[in-house]
């Protein structure tokens, strides 16, 4: 490409500098554009983005049912060994045995929020929650059991 001439260079650079100044000048005069969230003050009205990853959660419905079949796909997918699934054998009404989860153990202190477990889950039993205030004084509190006590797998989820 041919270099622009002496005066063309001056003209182009002045134009580009003025463009930049117009942008910052616009922001200076339009204070409603400010993006800052005053976090501890606006806790009540804080809205997190949908794709924000705070922790892994397992949604339960009103009947205390979840969709986890205990297939352990998330445990295999996790690069850090964050998830441990303890399974049990459930005896169904017709006498057949079926694999089900006893405890879905989630170590929040090991989790890097990489989202691989959510991608791996075939039944969409787990998803990323928006809670991010995880600070505790004792590390053992970060080990969480995601399935609520006494919960069952949803009917029809295989």
């Amino acid at each position: 490409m041919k270099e622009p001439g002496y005066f063309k260079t001056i003209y182009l650079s002045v134009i580009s500098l003025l463009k930049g100044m117009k942008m910052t000048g616009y922001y200076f005069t339009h204070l409603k554009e400010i993006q800052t969230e005053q976090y501890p003050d606006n806790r009540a009205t804080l809205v997190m983005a949908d794709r924000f990853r705070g922790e892994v959660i397992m949604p339960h419905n009103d009947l205390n049912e979840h969709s986890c079949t205990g297939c352990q796909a998330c445990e295999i997918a996790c690069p850090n060994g964050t998830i441990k699934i303890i399974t049990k054998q459930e005896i169904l009404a017709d006498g057949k045995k079926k694999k089900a989860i006893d405890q879905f153990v989630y170590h929040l202190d090991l989790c890097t929020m990489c989202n691989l477990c959510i991608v791996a889950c075939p039944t969409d039993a787990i998803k990323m929650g928006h809670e991010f205030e995880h600070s505790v004084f004792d590390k053992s509190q970060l080990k969480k059991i995601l399935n609520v006590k006494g919960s069952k797998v949803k009917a029809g989820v295989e």
Partner: protein
Amino acid sequence: MKTIFLISLSSLARHIHIWLEELIGNPNGVYITEMTIVGISLIVFLVVLCFFLGYAERKVAAFMQIRLGPNRVGPQGSLQIVADTVKLLFKEGLTPTAADKFLFHLAPLIMVITAMLALAPIAFAKDFQIFDMSIGVLYVASVSSMAVIGILMAGWSSYNKYSLLGAMRSGAQIVSYELSVGLSLISIVILTGSLKMSDIVMSQSDGWWLFKGHIPILISFVIFIIASTAEINRAPFDLTEAESELTGGFHTEYSGMKFAMFLLSEYINLFIVSAIAATLFLGGWMPLHFGHWEGFNHIMDYIPSSIWFLGKTFLIIFIIMWFRWTFPRLRVDQLLNLEWKYLLPISMVNILVVTLMAIMGWHF
């Protein structure tokens, strides 16, 4: 000139002078007392100014970057700078073992003193000037270029490669940009025919040079702003500090109040440069007048001259801050290219045009 205030700054100074003459009688005693008063009030003014500029800069920066800026200490964060100063006061003043102790301690003082010296001939209001010398413009140009000695001293004595690199860059930068600053100052001196600050202000009573001088003076105004931004080492020409490359440049090794002095001198220099630009190009304390709009001119006369001066100065300070928070930093070769290949030739040609204009009387 009429002012709505019964006490203007010049009459205040005159009253103090008369009062001191009655009180002391001895002219030498009066002189020394007045100098002390001027010195103390100047220091107080500068400290208040630096507090204000520090706050203003952080707010301007924040708003231009879609942030809020300081907003916790005091109303709207206005006491943030006070908190920072208290923090700096309590910090340990560390001196590197290998440093040249004498020069290391002397450098921040030289920076502040040279910065304060340059304030002497600036007219803050009508008939209100510390020292109206006949070579005001030359004096400011020469004193302000002495700041490079302080920077070189700081860089050399710190015994740190980053400090030394920053100081050397600063040397190259100030030596080159001094030329453009000087040439654009000369273009006004050609038109006024005087180096005296009060003469230069008086010559603009019928219109500011920026308007009277047509395009050549506009060009020299722009060149002055660019070159003086470089001379006071502010972004986009802050190669001497260049946080990302030199971890702070010549003041890397400074901490506590010695560091605060560098900060102080930076803001004083910013004020001086803007004050000079306001005096030479925007008419100093002269109110804005348009040819035959008698009513408009009359209203403008009612605004005190000190407000006019400070208003113009802060306008230019704002423009320089605007530069800082918009433009990316130049490389060293780009910096020198800009001066030697663009600013210097343009201002030289410009000087010829201005001279021709002055001889032919083409300005108003």
